[in-house]
């Protein structure tokens, strides 16, 4: 277990350092240079030179990278947004919890829907309900989230008036729990794809578990089919789902970016797209870095849960 944890945390650290290097290099590779990106295309060579000296952009690239890393770790300095006229960390600050809540709630809901659905499909496999669920999961899987969100808005907000078009922009991240009505459509949109893929995976993982030797042994010893299903197969089938969750997190966070833009939900994704329109490169790189680190930590947590849930790893000697 300790060996596994150390290895896994080491991996996560390598990824974080790699992402820092990539965002740094992307800033260095801006066509025309960083100074022009901030000062505008009409900046004179003198102002560009002054900006470069002020911001240490005339130093060798390794010194610049070291200053960047030092700033990140020592002062959480993500750069300065000249469009918002404040630090990127301040701009991101209140947006991050909103995205994390949206993703967290959606993942939780999709798991508590997908796991029973997957089990139901195995219990009733090759019956009409199995085919119906398979077909509908393919449908939701093929449906792009921006289209699904749009259709939900048209049907349930404009036509039926069941839900508001978008959550109030000044609502705090906590509002998702206190006033859930406004968050139903965004969460449903984000969860739909995950429900489709998780329940699909749950079904096949349950089928795999049922074909294992320990299930045959349990049956041979006379365990009831309920006990075989829930006591033996389910516990083993849940483990791969945790791995899948860890692996799907980047995709789910990407989905959150779309959902935030469809529903005008002021999280990291909406900020990123708005900053892309403003050519505010420091903010775009900052959100990318922060959301990636958050995703890496999320995947790491899923893998640790996996290790805790699986006695083969928890009690393993390596």
């Amino acid at each position, binding site marked *: 277990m300790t060996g596994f944890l150390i290895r896994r945390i080491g991996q996560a650290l390598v990824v974080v350092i790699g992402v820092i290097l990539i965002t740094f290099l992307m800033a260095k590779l801006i066509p025309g240079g960083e100074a022009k990106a901030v000062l505008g295309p009409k900046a004179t060579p003198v102002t560009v030179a002054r900006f470069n000296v002020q911001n240490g952009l005339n130093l060798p690239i390794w010194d610049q990278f070291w200053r960047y890393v030092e700033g990140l770790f020592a002062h959480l300095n993500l750069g300065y947004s000249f469009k918002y006229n404040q630090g990127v960390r301040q701009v991101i600050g209140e947006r991050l919890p909103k995205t994390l809540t949206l993703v967290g709630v959606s993942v939780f809901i999709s798991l508590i829907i997908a796991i029973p659905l997957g089990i139901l499909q195995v219990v009733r496999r090759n019956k009409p309900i199995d085919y119906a669920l398979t077909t509908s999961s393919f449908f939701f899987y*093929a*449906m792009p989230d*921006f289209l699904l969100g749009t259709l939900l808005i048209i049907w349930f907000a404009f036509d039926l008036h069941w839900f508001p078009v978008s959550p109030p922009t000044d609502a705090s991240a906590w509002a998702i729990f206190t006033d859930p009505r406004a968050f139903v459509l965004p969460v449903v949109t984000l969860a739909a794809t995950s429900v489709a893929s998780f329940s699909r*995976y749950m079904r*096949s993982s349950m089928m795999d578990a049922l074909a294992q030797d320990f299930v045959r042994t349990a049956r041979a010893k006379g365990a009831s089919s309920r006990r075989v299903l829930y006591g033996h197969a389910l516990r083993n089938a849940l483990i791969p789902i945790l791995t899948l969750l860890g692996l799907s997190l980047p995709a789910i966070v990407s989905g959150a970016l779309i959902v935030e833009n469809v529903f005008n939900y002021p999280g990291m994704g909406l900020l990123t797209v708005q900053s892309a329109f403003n050519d505010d490169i420091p903010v775009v790189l900052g*959100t*990318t870095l922060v959301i990636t680190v958050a995703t890496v930590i999320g995947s790491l947590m899923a893998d640790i849960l996996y290790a805790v849930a699986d006695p083969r790893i928890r009690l393993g000697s390596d």
Partner: protein
Amino acid sequence: MTDSDDFRPDPVFNDDERQTPLPIGAGPTMTSGQLSEGDALIPEGGESRSTGGILRQMGRVFVENKLAVVGLGVIVLMVLFCFVGPHLYPTNQTDAQLVLQDSTSNAPPGNGNPLGTDSNGYNILGRLMFGGQASLIVGFASALVATVFGTLYGAMSGFFGSWFDSLLMRVVDVLLSIPVLFLLIALVTIYHQSEILLILVIAFVSWLVPARLVRGETLSLRNREYVQAVRVMGGSRTRIIGRHIIPNSVGTIVVFATFQIADSILLLAALGFLGLGVPAPQTDWGTMLSNGVDAAGSGYWWQIYPTGICIVLVVVAFNYVGDALRDSLEVRLQQR
């Protein structure tokens, strides 16, 4: 939506785990997702040698899959619709002012505009063809670039092994852990959009999975007898990779490329929907949908549904074809 590999457990997750023993005592083991022509039956022939029998069998498995045939039909029809359609049904899709003089904006279907017009007065049926061209071209081209680059990268990484492999694969790990749309938007923001650039940028976020797949194949292929034979005979590394390893991974590569076209079309649609798609005066399906959504509250349904249907149809069609290709490449294992 974008990183949909989790839904296709076969090539992505299970390739390394599902070891299927070979029938005859040829290679040690063989992963299920691959078809290595001539490695089991003709162990001494490394080069991809397609026999008519296997191709015919694969063709039959493909045709037996009704959904795949329908999918292929949809793709052919869509390509015809977008590229031949404008010649049969010419509409003005470049000059909003000119169009405005003889038609109205936001007109409902009918009266010379079978699917109505959009807010600029463009005929939507014609615009679907016009925007589809960009969507299909960018989808195909970026999938091609991603597959070629990813294949070479993965083959090199797996073939040379040791620290070189570790380094190259860590790069893939890092890029894969960045949520794809954030990376895509960062790239689009820095390198301003043009159609060529969008192709490269989408390819840049898509080559990672083929790199991993081909590396896995290479790891198992490089120790096969025929590769060792080439090595003993003094064949160069380039020859081993180019003539033996890549041709033997071609099944995996083709299946991946098919799925990737669907994913690339979706990525472009997502970018277009966010307003970062193909720059005007061109358009793509995502941008069209985004324009339609701006008017969603006004009930202009004809600006949303046809575009949405086009995107979903093409994406589902490519996924069906990819599924069937994967099945047909496993035909030898099934018919063993």
